[in-house]
C-alpha cells in the first residue's frame, strides 16, 4: 500500500538530486536546465500527492500552471544558452567567470 509518505519521500529525493546537480555539475549548462526541470517535477509530484490525499483538486490545478510555466522557462533558458554559445563558443559552467568581484 502506497501512503502519502512514500510520495513525499520520492519528491524530496528528486528535489535533492536536482539541487545537488545544480551545485555539483561544473561541466555543462544543459545539465543545469535539466536539474531545474527535475526540481519543478518534484514539486508537481508533491502537489498531486497532497491533492489526492486531501481530496482537494486545487493542487492539481496548480500543477497545470506549473507545467505551462516550466515549458516557457525551458524555452527562455535554451534561448539564452544559444546566445551564450554564439558569444563564447562554449557552454562550460566553469568558463562563466568573467563577472566577479
Amino acid at each position, binding site marked *: 500500500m502506497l501512503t502519502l509518505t512514500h510520495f513525499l519521500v520520492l519528491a524530496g529525493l528528486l528535489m535533492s538530486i536536482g539541487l545537488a546537480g545544480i551545485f555539483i555539475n561544473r561541466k555543462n549548462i544543459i545539465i543545469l536546465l535539466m536539474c531545474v526541470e527535475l526540481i519543478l517535477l518534484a514539486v508537481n509530484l508533491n502537489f498531486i500527492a497532497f491533492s489526492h490525499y486531501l481530496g482537494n483538486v486545487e493542487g492539481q490545478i496548480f500543477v497545470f500552471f506549473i507545467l505551462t*510555466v516550466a515549458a516557457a522557462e525551458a524555452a527562455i533558458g535554451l534561448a539564452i544558452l544559444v546566445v551564450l554559445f554564439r558569444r563564447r563558443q562554449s557552454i562550460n559552467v566553469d568558463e562563466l567567470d568573467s563577472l566577479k568581484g
Partner: protein
Amino acid sequence: MSVTPDLLPATAEIFVLIMTCIILVVDTFTPEKYRASSYILTQGTLLGALLITIGLYTEQSIVTFHNTFILDPLASMLKGIIYIVVFAVLIYSKHFLQQHKMFKGEYFVLMLASVLGMMVMVSAYSFVTLYLGLELLSLSLYAMIAMQDQAKSAPEAAMKYFVLGAMASGLLLYGMSMIYGATGTLHLAEIQTNILDKFETHSLLLSFGLVFIIVAVAFKLGAVPFHMWVPDVYHGAPTAVTIFIGSAPKIAAFAMLFRLLVDGLESLHTSWQDILIILAILSMAVGNIIAIAQTNIKRMLAYSTVAHVGFILLGILSVSQSGYSASMFYTITYTIMAVGGFGMVLLLSHKGFDAERISDFKGLSTRAPWFAVMMMIFMFSMAGVPPFLGFWAKLLVLKAVVVEADMVWLAAIAVFFSIIGIFYYLRIIKFMFFDKAEDSEHLTITQGMAVTMSINGVVVLLLGLYPGILLTYCVQAITHVIQ
C-alpha cells in the same frame, strides 16, 4: 459562486495586457524610422494604467477571480509607484537604448510584460497568482538582459540570473506545496485562518514549508546569503536593464514578502522572525563592507542594494503595524533613490562608453554642476543623512525595531553598519567635487532626461523635508490590511 468573475478590480491589468499585445502588433507594422511610436505607446500605457488604478482606488478590499486576486489600498499604492518608477526608467534609458541598438518593440513589450507580472504579484491573494506573477516578471527580465547580443557579459549575466532564479522559483513552489499539504488550501486568507488549528498536528510540515518560502523570497530580494546573483547581474546587464531590475521589481518583491509572511503566515511569526533577523544582519554587514571594495559603480550599487534589503527585512521582522509601514516606506524610498542613482550612470554614458567605473564620476561638478548636486542628493539620501528622504526611512525602521520589537541591540548593529556604509557614498561625492575629471568629453544630456533627473532629485529632497506625505499613505495602506 458565479462562473464569470468580477473583472472590474483587474481593469488595470487587463488594460496593460491588451496594450502589450497592441504594441507588439503596431511595432511589427511600423517602419524603422517611426520606431519611437512604440516608446510613446508604452509611456501612454503606463499613464493610462496609473489613471485606471487611481480611479479604482477604494478603502475596501475587493477580492475576485475566486479569491485569487485582491484590490486593496496596499495594492493600489504599490502599483501606482511601479508605474511612475517604470515611466522614469524608460525616460532615463531611451538614449542608451538608441545607442546600443536596443530601441526595439520587443524591449518595450518585455518591459510591459514584466510590469504586468509585478501588478499581478502585488495583487496576488493566492499561491497560484503569486507564482504566475513572479514568473511573468522573471522570465521577461531574463530575456531583457540577454537581448543585447553585442555585450560581452550580458549573456553570462542572463544565464546566471536564469539558473538561480529558476532554482529559487522551484524552492518557493516546494515550500508552497508543504504549506498546501498542511492547510489544504492555496488561498492566503484561508491559510491564515486554517493555520492555527493545524499548527499542533502539522508543525514539522509547516516549518519546512516556511523555511523554503523564506529562502526563495530572500533569493528574489537579494538578501545575504542568497545574494550571489545581485552583483553579477547588475554588473553584466546593459545599464538600461540594470536600472529596471534595480528599481521596480524590489517593490514587487516587498509585496511578495508581505503577502506571504504577513497576509498568509503571520501566525508563524515566532518562527520566521529569527530567520529574518539573521538574514537582515548578514545583509547589512556583507552589503556595506563589500561595497567599499568595489571599483565598478554598478557593482557598488548592487552591494548597496543588498544592504538596503537588510533594512527592509528589519521593518518586517518587528512584527507590528508601524514596522510593516516603515518597511513599505523604506522600499518605496529606496526605489526612488535607486532610479536616480542608476539614472546618473546612464546620464554619463555616451556612445561606445559606459560610465561604469566609480572614477568616471571624477570632476563631475565642473562638467555638469547641476547633475553633480543631484547625484550628491541621491548619495546622501542612500547613506541616510538628514534631511533627505533616506534618513526618515532608516529612522522609522529603527524606531520600529526598538519600540515594537524591543531589540535595541539589533538597532545598534544596523546603525553601526550604516555608518560603515556612509564611506562609499561619500567617496563618490568626494570624486565629484574634489577630484579632476579624467574624461573631458562633452556630456550629451537629453532634455527629457534632464527634467526627469531634476524632478527625481527634488522629490528626494522635498519628501525628505515633508516625509509625512508619503508616510501617511503607507500607514493607511498597512493598517487597512492588518485589521
